[in-house]
């Protein structure tokens, strides 16, 4: 029997039992749709996080004391501004080196207050990280040199403290010390659940005085050469290690951060897809069940087809195609439903969703495969039926 003919026969058989075919497909539809939706959400989340990490600035190298392992406690930093000069010499360009000394502090303006992250930074920060201002100006070298008490507010802080007026030129107090607002950052949004707009930048010198310390928490370097970023990291770590014997330093590239985050989110996406896959499996069992019923119902037809010359293989292929057709149509419908839902979710909710071609191909392949796997037993049963017995059946 020609394959085209077998397809036609299979399609006719499904049409003959529309409601039953539709209900059987529903299991596959739900399974495939949930695979597509959950993978889309997983992928979308991953993409968004990666965008945010990349948004920190490219060629970024973060230098911190201690090892950057999961579970290792953050070491107390021995770094000072002198080390920053050393790093700047290694890099060869002081403008490419930024620092931070950060602490949570209450920022007040009149009767309003906001608890935010106050970061002591150098004037080089905008040339290392991508930070845009919506108002005013950023810190200057002289602000840092003279420990001037000036502050640049994150968008959330500005909104909380000055909901109805321009913050630039206004006074705020940080832990009781007065600072003058000179600028406001453009909003960045959330990253990994952290509000990145809830921060205040002040000159590192002013921050050290405020916290009564000489330390800085970490150094960020924008590498001049993307190809040699890891080598540069090694040199910085070596140099700092020599200045602070007994302390370990780490230089982490953006790529490494992306790698770790990507792994975690990839596993998460995989787990979601596997859970959705279970429902696809259940749908497949439904297909198998219905195919067995179909074989029993059409025993006489099978007997007749055999009598007029259908080989066992012809009958088997016919029923296998029927199962594959059930799951394929279900799969395509599920894909459409999944894509539609994923796009709707992305449009109306903050949950990101990105439909990927591979997830569609996978979902369709798996649903067609489910048809084959769960269609084989009923198809074999049909193919092996004794024509004499089959013809006699009621």
């Amino acid at each position: 029997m020609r394959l085209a003919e077998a397809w036609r026969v299979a399609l006719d058989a499904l049409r003959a039992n529309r409601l039953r075919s539709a209900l059987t497909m529903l299991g596959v539809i739900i399974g495939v749709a949930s695979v597509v939706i959950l993978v889309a959400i997983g992928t979308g989340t991953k993409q968004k996080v990666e965008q945010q990490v990349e948004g920190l600035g490219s060629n970024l190298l973060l230098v911190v004391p201690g090892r950057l392992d999961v579970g290792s406690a953050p070491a107390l930093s021995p770094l000072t501004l002198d080390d920053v000069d050393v790093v700047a010499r290694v890099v060869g360009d002081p403008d490419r080196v930024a620092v931070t000394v950060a602490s949570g502090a209450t920022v007040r303006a009149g009767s309003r207050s906001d608890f935010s992250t106050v970061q002591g930074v150098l004037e080089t920060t905008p040339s290392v990280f991508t930070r845009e201002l919506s108002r005013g100006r950023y810190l200057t070298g002289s602000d840092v040199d003279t420990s001037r008490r000036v502050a640049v507010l994150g968008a959330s802080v500005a909104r909380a403290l000055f909901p109805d007026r321009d913050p630039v030129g206004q006074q705020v107090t940080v832990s009781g010390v007065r600072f003058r607002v000179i600028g406001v950052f453009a909003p960045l949004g959330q990253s990994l659940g952290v509000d990145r707009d809830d921060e205040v930048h002040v000159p590192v010198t002013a921050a050290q005085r405020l916290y009564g310390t000489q330390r800085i928490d970490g150094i960020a370097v924008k590498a001049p050469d993307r190809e040699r970023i890891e080598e540069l990291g090694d040199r910085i770590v070596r140099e700092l290690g020599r200045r602070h014997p007994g302390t370990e330093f780490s230089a982490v590239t953006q790529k490494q951060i992306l790698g770790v985050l990507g792994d975690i989110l990839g596993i998460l996406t995989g787990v979601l897809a596997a859970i959705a896959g279970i429902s696809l499996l259940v749908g497949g069992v439904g297909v198998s069940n219905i195919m067995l019923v179909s074989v029993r119902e059409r025993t006489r037809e099978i007997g007749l087809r055999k009598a007029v010359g259908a080989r066992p293989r012809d009958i088997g292929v016919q029923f296998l195609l029927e199962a594959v057709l059930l799951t394929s149509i279900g799969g395509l419908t599920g894909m459409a439903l999944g894509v539609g839902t994923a796009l709707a979710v992305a449009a109306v909710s903050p949950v990101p969703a990105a439909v990927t071609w591979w997830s569609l191909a996978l979902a369709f392949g798996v649903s067609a495969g489910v048809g084959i796997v769960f269609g084989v037993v009923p198809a074999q049963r049909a193919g092996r039926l004794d024509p004499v017995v089959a013809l006699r059946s009621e």
Partner: protein
Amino acid sequence: MTAPAIEAVDVSRTYQLDGVSVPALRGVSLAVAPGDYVALVGPSGSGKSTLMHLLGGLDRPTAGRLSIGGRDVTSLSAAELATLRNETIGFVFQAFHLLPRTSAVDNVALPLVYRGISARQRRDRAAAMLGRVGLGHRLDHRPNQLSGGEQQRVAIARALVTDPAVLLADEPTGNLDTATGATVLELLERLNAESGVALVLVTHDNDVAARARRRIAMRDGIVVADSAGERHDRPVRDAGGPPDTLVPAPSAESRSASGSGPGRPSGGTGGAAGATGRRGVDEP
């Protein structure tokens, strides 16, 4: 002498039911010549259905030799047997066995599907065949839109569309009223005469059997009478069963054996020996 279309030599078929061997056929020998018209008669349980399944290649004998279209079926796989059926045999069943929701022309074309013939050619040949059975105007009707007689004619067209050597008809008039049954029977006989397809008719209707050129009577899994023996001086297996199985038949056979031999006027037209033989298989 032409080779027989189907030849069975000492064929037996035993079923295993719950571990018990139930013999359905116990050593049957017969040959169906090309173009022959044979009625296979016998009460239910006589093994005539089993024999028909064997002759049609739907089943294989447990012992003996059976060849269909010159091929020994015992050595064939299920797939080879299916192809052999497709090429050599046409089936007509009591219950028509048409595919529901399928047009007459598609029902008739079904055997051609398994020959890999293109859809256009299938339709042409099926339509031509339906024309021959007088249903050229009903090509696209579905079985439920056709009368019983029309459905059986569709089934006959389906059986003959492959141009088989043998047409096996299992109680073809059993589900039809007398008048319709007669029409269907006439059609089968006409096709038998026209196309030279051998017609093997399984029936328990004596009026139907009376019309056949040759009658084979069965009882308890053996052939108890074969009118071909009278014509060709073939040895007919004697009724070895219980004495009450055949009342007048043995006398008919003995008369035949002791009679004048060839040239007896009992052959194709249903003479005296045929009539007594027929009566012989009637239920007491």
